[in-house]
């Protein structure tokens, strides 16, 4: 196989792609951190009042929020990178500001794209799901959904979403 078949580029942060009946926006990078352990204590310390969201729950328009990954793990999303990496009293924090790329899909075909990329939606306390073949954290926006995918997979997933939109 010619290795140069993988020519699609990772999306540039802030750009918007117009797909068939929907748009795909690559949100600009903000702050994010993986936190594990006593999530309530971590949130109280880092982002008091921030909600802990499960699968496809609506993320707030402004302000920090956390996407639960597992019982004792979540991705805290903030406006800017946090410090405080390492071990704290019962919880651990690692900077993951650029580990995930947030892809915002909105428009009439957003639901079809979602159906093409993940198992049928059923409420789950974990926001992590297999999305387009890779693990991703999914939340809902006012106009569609946001998939946070590992940065190294973003080119592939955007390409896949484009293919789905073209053929849906």
């Amino acid at each position, binding site marked *: 196989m010619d*290795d*140069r*078949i*993988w*020519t*699609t*580029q*990772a999306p540039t942060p802030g750009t918007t792609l117009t797909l068939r009946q929907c748009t795909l926006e690559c949100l600009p*990078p903000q702050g994010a951190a*993986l936190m*594990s*352990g*006593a999530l309530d204590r971590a949130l109280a310390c880092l982002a008091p009042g921030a909600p802990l969201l499960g699968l496809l729950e609506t993320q707030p328009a402004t302000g920090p929020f956390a996407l639960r990954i597992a019982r*004792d*793990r979540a991705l805290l999303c903030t406006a800017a*990178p946090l410090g405080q*990496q*390492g*071990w704290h009293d*019962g919880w*651990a*924090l*690692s*900077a*993951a*500001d*650029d*580990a*995930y790329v947030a892809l915002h899909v909105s428009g009439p075909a957003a639901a*079809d794209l979602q*159906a*093409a990329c*993940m*198992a*049928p*939606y*059923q409420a789950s306390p974990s926001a992590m799901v297999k999305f387009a*073949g890779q693990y991703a954290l999914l939340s809902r926006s006012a106009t569609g959904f946001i998939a946070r995918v*590992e*940065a*190294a*997979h*973003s*080119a*592939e997933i955007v*390409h*896949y979403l484009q*293919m*789905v939109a*073209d*053929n*849906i």
Partner: protein
Amino acid sequence: MSGWRHPSMGHMIDRTSPISFSFDGTPLQGFQGDSVASALLAAGPRVLGRSFKYHRPRGLWGMAGEEPNAIFDVQEQGLGCPNQRATTLPLRAGMALRSVNTRPSAQGDWLGVMDWAQRFLPAGFYYKTFMALGWMRWEPMIRRMAGLGRLDPAHMPAATTPALNALCDLLVIGAGPAGLAAAKAAADQGRVVWLLDEATALGGSLRWRGGEINGAPWAEFANATETAVLQAGGRVLTDTTLWGAFDHGSYAAWQRRANAPDRHWRLRAQQVILAAGAIERPMWFANNDLPGILSAEAALHYLVLYGAVAGRRILLATGNDASYPVAAALAQAGAQVILADTRQQTPPAPQGVRHMPGATLSRAHGSRAVGAATVDGHYIDADTILVSGGYTPSVHLHCQAGGKLDWAPACDALVPRPGTAPMATVGAANGAFGLALALAQGHAAAQGAGPAPQATAPAWGLAAIRPNPQLRGRQWIDPQNDVTLKDVKLAAQEGYSAVEHLKRYTTLGMATDQGRSANFAGLAAMAALTGRSIAQTGTTTYRPPFVPVPLGVIGGLRRGSAFDPPKRLALEPQHREMGARLREYGGWLRPAFYGTDEARAVQSEALIARKTVGLYDASPLGKIEVIGPNAAALLDFCGYVPMSSLKPGRARYGFMLAESGIVHDDGVVLRLDTDRFVVSASSSHVASVRMILEEARQDRFASKDVFVHDITCNWCTLTASGPAARALLVQAGVLAPGSAAHALPHMGVIESQWQGAPLRLARVSFTGDCAFEISVPLRHASALYTALDAARTTLGGAWIGLEAVMILRAEKGYILVGKDTDGVTMPHDLGWSGPRSKRQDPYFGDRALFTAEAQRPDRRQLVGLVTPQHTPLPTGAHIVPNSGDLHSLGFVTSSYYSPFLGRPIALAMVNGGRDLMGETVGVFHLGERMQAQICAPCALDPKGERLNG
């Protein structure tokens, strides 16, 4: 040429829109709305294909997925798709149909001579004959002759089928009367219903048989059902075949769309109702495979929907009431119809039909198509024979889901045993051969409120019809795979009386129609031959797919670049701009070398890196943070080399073993703080290393005191290696002269800032030279690249690809796990025996290191090789004795030409290799025995002086 188009019948076709197509090169015409089968039937050609084994001429039989004969390779708009069924394929302008298994055409297939040799080719012929003569000799020829359809890579269909997932309250499979009743009952109660049917419209057999429901035309009920389903949030999918029932309530459906790509649905439902109808059985008489012999139900289907009339002089042989409306409709359409019923007690004869009660069809006459028939010894002139041997409920999906069957004598069929599959089966699929009963069953299965929809049509009367072993001539049981009644008898004689053995011995039911029209006859014949009942004889196992599904549909969009795509570097655009040739390494697309001439580029890059400085992108190296008071203990347990003694700000090389003691991964662990480590796993092992750590964390440790975070994707890591590495970093502003970072010792690590960004600097080396790994968050990758590249230019350094890195590490004897190790390599095989002999604490894989096998002195061990040749030894070549007999002592694992040393270098795993230092061995490859001398793995700077620049 017996089929013809009725001047007014056929509400599916648009006579104002003629469509041209071709069959085996012959131009033909149909109409918009035709199926390929209806267009061919009306256009007249009868021989549409050839049978699999004897190449006998075959024509259209059915009207849906049960069709065994009319299968074509289809080309349209430059794309080709093999083995398409004429019955389920809509006619489109410009279609070029080519018959399968024919040379050169269905009409003039020269392999038809096989039929002359039929008496020498009974069932089991291949197994007996070709084994005795040596199967390998015959196999290529047999394979060339066998197989249906041709794959044509030049006209490969595009990968355009998206796979969609859906969940609903009720999934109704089949939109005939029972399915409609079920869907409406559920939708009326507000349940989300998905109603699927493989036909182009709702209604099932109502579409050609007609009928009234609740005193109104059936179509009103169908429309009301569709409206109710849609209003309740459900979906109605026509042209959609539910082709597989899988574990855990998962179903797959293939939706065919006009002027749009197909869709592949993965469905789950709270409740499933199967209303897939029934398939008409053939009848068994001599020459019952001739073109011009059709299912009676199919003939009515083509007449009513498409105005395609099967023939002009039609003999309809039946044993049930359902054929009477067929005879009436054909007579009304203008055909001469003779109705031969095996029963003495029959309904009244339809007007204009010659009726023969108590008559049995025993033979069809004709060479390439039907010309006449023998009924009760009377020769009857007929260009078409329609048959109805009863109905077989379509229970495939019930059985795929694990359901069992029971024999129901009243309907002469096997029907689903309730409660054995996670679905309810209703209507004809459940043996309910009558409109009123089908409606009632559908309504009840969906827990419908109020009375079921009403209909007045009576249930059918039918007589059991079976193959008759006393009849002379060949009676075809499986037309697609050329299985006759005689073959079934032969199987029984030879002891293959179990249905699964019968299937494999004769190939009965193994064709692409999955034996829909064949299996019942096969097992009925076997039951009769062995004196068992049909229930005792049983059925073969039903497996997906229900109908052949194009692989393009199952594969979906995952083809080409979307098939197993690698991870991508943040700096890929910059690498491409510099002329990098990218390859996949450990699941990442990484620069292999820069330029166009690989051999020259790789050598040049490796030399520059040794002489000045080489820069490479090491971002894929794992960055797994292990954090917490128990972090050191977790790493000690999971690693072969203990890490608890490592001081903060230092790094240490180590291994991670599998439980079997095999080297699973190697890499450097950085200790950033007393309770914070970074495990730098090799790029292809990040996920598995993380999994081992996570499993041990959860199983063995107080899991609240240690956590594992994989943040590989957060960081861009660029490595500067070579004598000028430190100078490069100073020039790029990464190192300030006199700073702590500038004085960083080998295996030192420091966290600091660069241009306001977090920066991690680790002085670790995979090349043996002074090297720095510089890591910044991805958003700063471009800035770091720019700064380093500018400094590189002034120092005469180079960007180097992974191929050059491979040379540099092999010169030092540094291994690559998976390349220089295999599935039996333990750490002491690589010369790392310290922890094994000294550690007293338990660690992952420890016990396996002390088995008798692990302690064998002649285990394969890592060594280097020196060859007198100027060219590198072939990687993978066997190490053999220098002379004498050839037996493998090991193999070459890595081999390169070292531009810095000016000679080839190689690493190898050799039995007891460390005891063979200085000895000459043979290196055997492709019949040639070369010589090499065993040496230490490290070919360059064994004292490690270059590490300090």
